[in-house]
């Protein structure tokens, strides 16, 4: 069930009605959330519910067992069990065919035949998100940062919480799990920000992301298009992926907020970043902090000298690239960002140049990264890169620029407003009529571009 589909709107209305209208105990309401979450997830393919349940149950019992055993080596074995179960499922469903296929191609290029079996399984939607969320629980219990819970329903609901189940934010147990275990308070501010986040998130997805997607697909989906239009298509893709993903996060946070939950901020004006590290502090914050806490720091972080730090950065970004998808262009994207993060630890722009120059360089790096990310293959990357410099323009360039600017304008206006006011909700202090006007404008434009079945979110494939 997609957030931007009619079936989800009916589902949400029915759920909110039940949630608010029926008096229930905390366990009853957690059970309602769990049931709704499993219905939401099973709507795609009910068979993958078993995988979600299995992953959750393993981590629930591992969490409890870690606390029961005093022996550190036994605790480590339990953590290993959780790692194998979660990463094993991820490896089978997401990476097996990719690595076996790549290995087979390598052998064939050397003249050896190797008919390895391929699985050709469908990737369960959101698997990378919920396995990371579930895994962080056992890791935090092992580290003593989180108390294991014996409330199975609350834990299952924490892993499968439908607003953020399939595309994040990847919540830590330390933030979200206690919210399932205690009385929740639905505040005025929560309701108001929740409503705004849902409306603005839908607008970003339906009006902006889907239209940027049409523009980028025109060029990236056609290997005949030549010239500098590739630059514009890359800008379109950069805005598409931002609006698509942050739109999803906004809707997720909005729904959660209206239910009395608080989810972490996942995007903080990433295209205002003035260095690659600043970008990663603002982009997909729940994932970048996950990799920081569970991979980069355990590898040694920046504590063992600059060479070790660069190695750790490269490893972390390589894995982050691979997390996004089983493809060499994702690996290359991760390495590109890793290399740029390393470079920026050495390069410092003169003080006066830093704000604008740093922003400009960061955007060049980020948007070239999007080219690597969006390309279909390594050959496609070479072809696209060679076209960046060609001053050839298709006859429809004018329409392309007009479309691009039309959809960029509302986003940039909102972001500049947010940036200048220093808050993600600059509209909240406005008078009720102005606030309502802004919401209604977004609702009408969303309705204009609304597609009943919904267009899938990009990050669902990860």
């Amino acid at each position, binding site marked *: 069930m997609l957030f931007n589909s*009619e079936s989800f709107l009916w589902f949400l209305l029915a759920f909110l009605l039940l949630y608010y209208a029926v008096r229930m105990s905390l366990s*009853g309401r957690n059970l309602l959330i769990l049931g709704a979450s499993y219905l939401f997830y099973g709507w795609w393919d009910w068979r993958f519910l078993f995988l979600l349940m299995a992953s959750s149950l393993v981590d629930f019992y591992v969490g409890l067992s870690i606390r029961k055993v005093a022996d550190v080596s036994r605790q480590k074995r339990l953590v290993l069990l959780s790692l194998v179960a979660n990463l094993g499922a991820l490896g089978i469903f997401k990476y097996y065919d990719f690595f076996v296929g790549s290995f087979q191609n390598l052998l064939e290029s050397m003249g050896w035949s190797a008919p390895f079996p391929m699985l050709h399984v469908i990737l369960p939607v959101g698997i990378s998100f919920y396995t990371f969320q579930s895994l962080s629980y056992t890791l935090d219990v092992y580290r003593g940062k989180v108390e294991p819970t014996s409330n199975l329903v609350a834990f299952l609901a924490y892993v499968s919480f439908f607003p953020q189940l399939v595309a994040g934010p990847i919540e830590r147990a330390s933030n979200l799990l206690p919210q399932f275990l205690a009385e929740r*308070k639905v505040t005025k501010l929560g309701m108001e920000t929740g409503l705004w986040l849902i409306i603005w998130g839908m607008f970003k997805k339906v009006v902006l992301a889907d239209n940027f997607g049409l523009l980028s*697909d025109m060029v990236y989906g056609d290997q005949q298009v030549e010239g500098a239009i590739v630059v514009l298509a890359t800008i379109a893709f950069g805005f598409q992926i931002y609006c698509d993903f942050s739109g999803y996060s906004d809707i997720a946070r909005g729904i959660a907020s209206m239910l009395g939950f608080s989810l972490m901020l996942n995007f903080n004006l990433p295209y205002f970043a003035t260095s690659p590290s600043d970008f990663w502090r603002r982009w997909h914050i729940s994932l970048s902090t996950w990799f920081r806490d569970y991979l980069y720091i355990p590898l040694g972080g920046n504590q063992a000298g600059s060479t070790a730090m660069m190695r750790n950065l490269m490893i972390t970004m390589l894995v982050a690239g691979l997390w996004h998808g089983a493809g060499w262009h994702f690996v290359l994207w991760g390495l590109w960002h890793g290399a740029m993060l390393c470079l920026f630890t050495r390069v410092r722009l003169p003080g006066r140049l830093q704000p604008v120059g740093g922003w400009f360089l960061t955007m060049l790096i980020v948007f070239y990264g999007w080219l690597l990310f969006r390309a279909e293959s390594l050959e496609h990357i070479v072809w696209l890169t060679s076209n960046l410099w060609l001053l050839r323009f298709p006859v*429809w360039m004018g329409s392309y620029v007009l*479309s691009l600017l039309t959809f960029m304008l509302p986003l940039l206006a909102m972001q500049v407003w947010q940036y200048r006011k220093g808050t993600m909700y600059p509209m909240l202090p406005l008078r009720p009529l102005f606030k309502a006007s802004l919401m*209604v404008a977004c609702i*009408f434009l969303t309705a204009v571009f609304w597609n009943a079945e919904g267009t899938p979110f990009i990050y669902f494939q990860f």
Partner: protein
Amino acid sequence: MKSHSYEFDMRWLLGLLGPVLLLIVASACCLRLAPLFLPQARDAWDMDRAIMATQTDLAATQSNADIVLIGDSSCLMNLDAALISSLSGKKVVNLGTVSFLNMEVFGTLLKRYMESQEHPPSKVILMTHPDFLRRASASRMHVEWIEHYMKGLDYWSGSTSWKSVGRYMGVHLIQGRLLSWLPRPLKAEFGSLFGFTKDLERYMKQHHGSALDPRSLQSEDLKGSREYRISTANMRHAESFKSILPVDTDLLVALSPLPEGFVDASLQSELPELRSQWSASLKADTIIQMLPLTMPDADFASKTHLTPKANQTYSKRLALFLKGL
């Protein structure tokens, strides 16, 4: 344990949602008045609608052409009216649209053209594909859209519940009247060649109403039924089509070609008969027999459309025919 506490009451909630709902209703009411002060509806947001809107506009423009081409998408994509004009020395306009319409709409479009000219054309050439002749009914959405457009009315094809809500909100009025200037990207090969709806419309205007099909013939295009006959609906509409033409205007009939790889011996022998039968039911003055009924597969972009290159040779053949008249 208690699961929730609420910091607000129903009155506060109404205060939050009330202005939004009231503004939606107020905006919907204002939009209902849109026809009074906004430009004419033109929600040509996809390729079919862009073609239908362009041809409807072209039909209402005074061009005083000597020859008018009309028909389905094979007329639109297989004939280059600008090239035919320059080679034949006669002013030619192409009002070919899409195959999802019917003869009744072609007739209405032609009538619209006749009413907009100082003097009627000497000839009208009706070109359709054999697939069009056997089609039992047109696409309701396409027919309704062009009928609304010709009358300057707003159209909304929403069939789902939320789309119906959109209709009451007046969303179609925003799309058709406020955002009609927005170019929409065309899909796949059409996007590569023409780019956007506005660019396709510009191309068609420059080529007197003609367009091109940039695709390549696929093996699936050569599959399907080989039984051809004229549908009852087409027979019925054919009888009244000729009456739209002034007495001095001749009706010429042509059938678009099929790929040779699709046509078997039996169909090969049936096609001339099909053309004659169609011409008879239209009470046409002339059958254009010098245009081939089949062509090599390499000349086709799809089962119904020629490639841009074959379009040129095919148009030249028609231009030669018209020059000799």
